[in-house]
């Protein structure tokens, strides 16, 4: 496809602007002063610079200079003045805005209440109208103005705001959290950079305490996270009901702190291998974790580490109970197979509560559950605490326990009646009521309250034995019991809800942590991109694609599920996202005709690529409340890609450096080793013209031979480095090899006696005789060069149980300690020796190259007594021929 027939992003943009409703983006902050307005204006400015028609509907700069600077250059709709009780108030002129019809309007302070007499009482209603008219809106909001959180905020800040925005408005918006640390915000406050209306100064002073700001910030972040989590769960559940699982298998292995959980992990690995499925090892953290011994903690870490080594992603999920945690995690991970160990609990316990396995089978419909005998289920040893599911009556056990406690108190009360006053007996019943309400559910608490009041009435209040109440005072006792039940259970419900909330946000954290762990585990760029696509697709239940910029437009690198090409509009959107470092495509504000949404993968070095997201059912690619999770995932993906890119650049730089080093070493070696003998030959030949002498002739001969060896070595080295060693392996007799090598080096070994010390029955070996010959020549040559004059050079063959060693041993200075490996490197010459001895550092490198090509190894060591170097070629057992007697020869 050529560049010209692809629709231009701008053309598509205009088409996109025509269709439907405008989009709302809310810049959400924890408190005033975090910089929402500034963020909105700078975002708006970027959009304007990229060609979008942006006007300011209303902006409160509060006289801040940096904010005002951003306003400059923007078209501002003049405010409409509304007279109110003698004051003239400037409100946003919605009619002027609708008339002007910009593509994007910037409207500050979404929660603002309009002056009486305006069209809408609230500004967010104005905004909704703008959206309906097809105008995109950027707006700002503080978390305490979110309607559902208003109470919560008021409860700890002691400041109640009247101006609220319904949650439904937030739900249709893309939310960007503008976040700065509380300390920084307090600093800004002290510097007078935060605008506070005069009348609210005192109240807000308390509002800006560090603990409040921390809580508000957490609230803002957590709300987003919670929404993402809830929707993810909800979506998965919907899928499960429809029986519409994604094609791939996913395996979850429950890991406990027990030693035999290792067996479970391995079983999970086998299953995963058989199904070619991704798998996760999960540990459910329950209250019992805190009671772990150090050994158990270590064992748990070992079990998870084992899983990680075997290729699982691992997670540790806090939950109220093993069953709940496992159930939720399995749903979230959309597991198709669960592996867990058989419980070692008593049959009595399981009969009463149902085992984790039974409950999983009952509640997690289409999942295969593997129960292995060796392990133990990862559940807590005590009774699991259960969540109060709305609308559920809960476990019948709860009522049974409540009744038992009421009965116990009745018995106790009868016994104590002799000692204490009748009215105090009713206090005893507070125990079962509060316990049932706090531990079980509101209904169980009420049940206990009613049971208690009936028992109290029947057994204690005169007339005893009947349910009539004679004294009106005693009616109050009954009401008090019921009231306590209600109040206690509500407190308890809130505590449980918070625990639940914390549980779900840590699940999300676990998902993120698992994601980053998986990204660090991959080795190549392709694997990394595949992992990014697969993981994000799994976590958000979307289709994903990763594109990198190239000269021919965005280049599809990886996709999950696999995809080989994208449409023109998608590529245009991806290109736009790369060029503008902004999201583009469906669900963004740009090129919405694309089915895919493209988010740039940004790093400090610019955009590395874009991640495309689409939904299987062609719906909106991503909901705004999934954005925080997506953003975190994108951040991690960008970091991982950046890391990989840097690593690659580093490696390349190092390889180039290494090549340069080798090249200059080669050049200096070649020029030295070629020029020295050539100079000698030339000089000797010139002198010979005048004074013929046998000495000069011999000099020429020696130098020429040296030159010849060097050239031969250079050729051999070139062949090794080209990887083109013609190999002709044949059964070879080491006696032959040694004898011909000794014969060919007889000149350079002059003055040394060559001692062959090889057992007569040494087996034949399967090698290339020519390469082995070159190895031996170089080793003998090397020995001749370094051995002390007149000393023998020994060639020793030794048969080991698993190999055959062939060594060349000299008597000389030996090898410097620590140089044993380096001597085989190209151009290494033993330090300090290159000034006195001739020859290049090629010889031993050739020995190594040739030996390794044949499947042999070489090592260098020092020999003691007499001192010298010992170079050994090791021929592995596989290359030795079995003994053939001459009688066996046909």
């Amino acid at each position, binding site marked *: 496809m050529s560049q010209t027939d692809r629709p231009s992003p701008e053309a598509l943009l205009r088409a996109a602007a025509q269709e439907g409703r405008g989009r709302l983006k809310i810049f959400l902050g924890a408190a005033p002063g975090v910089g929402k307005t500034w963020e909105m204006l700078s975002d708006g400015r970027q959009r304007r610079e990229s060609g979008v028609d942006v006007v300011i509907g209303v902006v409160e700069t509060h006289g801040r200079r940096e904010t005002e600077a951003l306003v400059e250059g923007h078209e501002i709709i003049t405010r409409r003045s509304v007279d109110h009780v003698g004051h003239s108030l400037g409100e946003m002129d919605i009619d002027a805005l609708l008339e002007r019809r910009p593509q994007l309007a910037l409207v500050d302070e979404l929660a603002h209440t309009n002056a009486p007499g305006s069209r809408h009482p609230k500004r967010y209603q104005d905004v909704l109208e703008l959206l309906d008219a097809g105008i995109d809106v950027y707006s700002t909001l503080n978390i305490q103005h979110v309607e559902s959180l208003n109470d919560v905020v008021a409860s700890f800040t002691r400041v109640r705001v009247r101006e609220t925005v319904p949650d439904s408005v937030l739900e249709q918006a893309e939310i960007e959290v503008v976040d700065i640390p509380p300390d920084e915000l307090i600093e800004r406050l002290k510097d007078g950079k935060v605008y506070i209306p005069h009348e609210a100064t005192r109240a807000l002073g308390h509002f800006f305490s560090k603990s409040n700001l921390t809580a508000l910030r957490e609230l803002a972040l957590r709300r987003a996270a919670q929404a993402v989590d809830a929707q993810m769960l909800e979506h998965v559940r919907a899928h499960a009901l429809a029986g519409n699982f994604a094609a791939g298998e996913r395996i979850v292995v429950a890991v406990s702190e027990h030693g035999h959980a290792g067996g479970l992990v391995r079983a999970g690995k086998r299953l995963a291998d058989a199904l070619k499925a991704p798998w996760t090892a999960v540990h459910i953290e329950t209250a019992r974790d805190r009671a772990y011994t150090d050994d158990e903690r270590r064992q748990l870490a070992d079990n998870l580490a084992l899983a990680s080594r075997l290729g699982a992603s691992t997670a540790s999920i806090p939950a109220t109970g093993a069953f709940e945690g496992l159930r939720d995690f399995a749903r979230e991970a959309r597991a198709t197979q669960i592996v867990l160990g058989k419980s070692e609990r008593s049959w009595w316990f399981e009969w009463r509560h149902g085992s984790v396995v039974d409950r999983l089978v009952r509640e997690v419909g289409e999942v295969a559950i593997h129960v292995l005998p060796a392990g133990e289920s990862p559940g807590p040893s005590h009774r699991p605490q259960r969540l109060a599911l709305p609308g559920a009556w809960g476990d019948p056990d709860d009522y049974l326990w409540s009744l038992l406690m009421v009965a116990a108190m009745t018995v106790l009360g009868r016994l104590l009646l002799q000692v204490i006053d009748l009215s105090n007996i009713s206090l005893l019943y507070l125990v079962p009521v509060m316990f049932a309400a706090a531990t079980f559910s509101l209904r169980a608490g009420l049940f206990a309250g009613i049971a208690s009041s009936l028992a109290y009435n029947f057994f204690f209040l005169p007339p005893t034995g009947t349910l009539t109440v004679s004294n009106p005072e005693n009616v109050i006792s009954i009401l008090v019991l019921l009231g306590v039940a209600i109040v206690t259970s509500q407190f308890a419900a809130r505590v449980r809800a918070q625990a639940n909330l914390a549980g779900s946000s840590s699940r999300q954290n676990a998902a993120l942590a698992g994601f980053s762990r998986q990204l660090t585990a991959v080795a190549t760029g392709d694997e990394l991109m595949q992992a990014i696509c697969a993981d994000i697709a799994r976590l958000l239940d979307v289709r994903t694609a990763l594109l990198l910029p190239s000269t021919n437009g965005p280049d599809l690198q990886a996709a999950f599920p696999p995809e080989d090409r994208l449409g023109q509009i998608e590529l245009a959107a991806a290109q736009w996202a790369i060029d503008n470092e902004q999201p583009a495509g469906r669900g963004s504000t740009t090129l919405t005709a694309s089915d895919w949404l493209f988010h740039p993968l940004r790093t400090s070095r610019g955009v590395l690529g874009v991640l495309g997201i689409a939904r299987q059912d062609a719906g909106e690619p991503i909901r705004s409340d999934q954005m925080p999770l997506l953003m975190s995932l994108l951040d991690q993906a960008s970091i991982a890609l950046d890391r990989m890119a840097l690593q690659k650049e580093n490696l390349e730089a190092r390889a180039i450096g290494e090549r340069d080093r080798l090249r200059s070493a080669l050049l200096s070696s070649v020029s030295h080793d070629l020029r020295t003998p050539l100079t000698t030959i030339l000089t000797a030949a010139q002198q010979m013209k005048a004074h013929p002498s046998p000495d000069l002739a011999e000099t020429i001969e020696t130098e020429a031979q040296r030159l010849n060896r060097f050239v031969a070595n250079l050729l051999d080295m070139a062949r090794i480095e080209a990887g083109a060693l013609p190999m002709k392996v044949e059964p070879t007799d080491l006696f032959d090899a040694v*004898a011909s090598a000794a014969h060919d080096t007889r000149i350079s070994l002059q003055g040394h006696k060559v001692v062959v010390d090889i057992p007569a029955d040494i087996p034949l070996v399967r090698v290339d005789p020519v390469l082995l010959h070159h190895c031996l020549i170089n080793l003998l040559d090397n020995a001749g060069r370094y051995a002390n004059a007149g000393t023998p050079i020994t060639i020793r063959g030794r048969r080991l149980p698993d190999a055959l060693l062939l060594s060349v041993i000299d008597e000389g200075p030996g090898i410097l300690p620590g140089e044993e490996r380096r001597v085989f490197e190209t151009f290494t010459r033993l330090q300090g020796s290159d000034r006195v001895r001739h020859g290049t550092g090629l010889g031993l490198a050739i020995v190594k190259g040739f030996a390794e090509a044949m499947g042999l190894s070489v090592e260098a060591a020092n020999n003691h007594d007499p001192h010298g170097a010992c170079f050994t070629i090791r021929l592995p057992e596989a290359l030795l021929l079995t003994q*053939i007697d001459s009688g066996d020869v046909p």
Partner: protein
Amino acid sequence: MKNRPKVLVVDDEPQIRRLILAALGRADYLAIEAQNAREAMAMLRDQQPEVVLLDLGLPDRDGLELVPLIKQNPGVTVIVVSARDATDEKVAALDLGADDYLTKPFDTDELLARLRVALRNRVTRTGGSPLLTAGDVSIDLLDRLITRNGDEVHLTPKEFAILEQLAAMPGRVITHKQMMSAVWPRQTEQRVEYLRVLIRSLRQKLEADPQNPQLICNEPGIGYRLRLPAAANTNH
């Protein structure tokens, strides 16, 4: 004046030709030269040399192709002198009928020694004495009698077949293939390890120091040659 053997030097490098010609002249050979394959074949026909020193890298034709053509002339000895040092090439030249192979750069003395061996083999083949003496070993191929220090050495038929190959042209490399087809004429599968074993046992019987063989010498990857120390000293 003795009958001077005529040697044709085929090489495209004038410097090499000049040096070889000078060395041959000093050693009392009658040397003629050719600088390419065409000239070489003309010289061969017109001048009828007894030995051809053949370079493989000729400008008009690959020297290897010339080997069988030259060998069609009975009684002509071919010694390949080439800078190509690939083992395969050497084996190919020898299997095509070349009598010996020398790699450039070579030692002039070595060249002359090989030349002497080649000429002497020619004499042997054309009716000379089949009796060889190498140190304390004497080999009589006609009577199939091998002695070492005067004592008879008993060889198996295979061992004798190997030795016969080597001794028929002492000093010349006999390739593995040539030896094996002589010893196991019906064997299609070449088993070098059997050859190695036979060589080893021959050495045990004939060599003074089998660990350091002086008589039966190995050419790595090519074959074996029977080295006769006495032959090198023979002056003709």
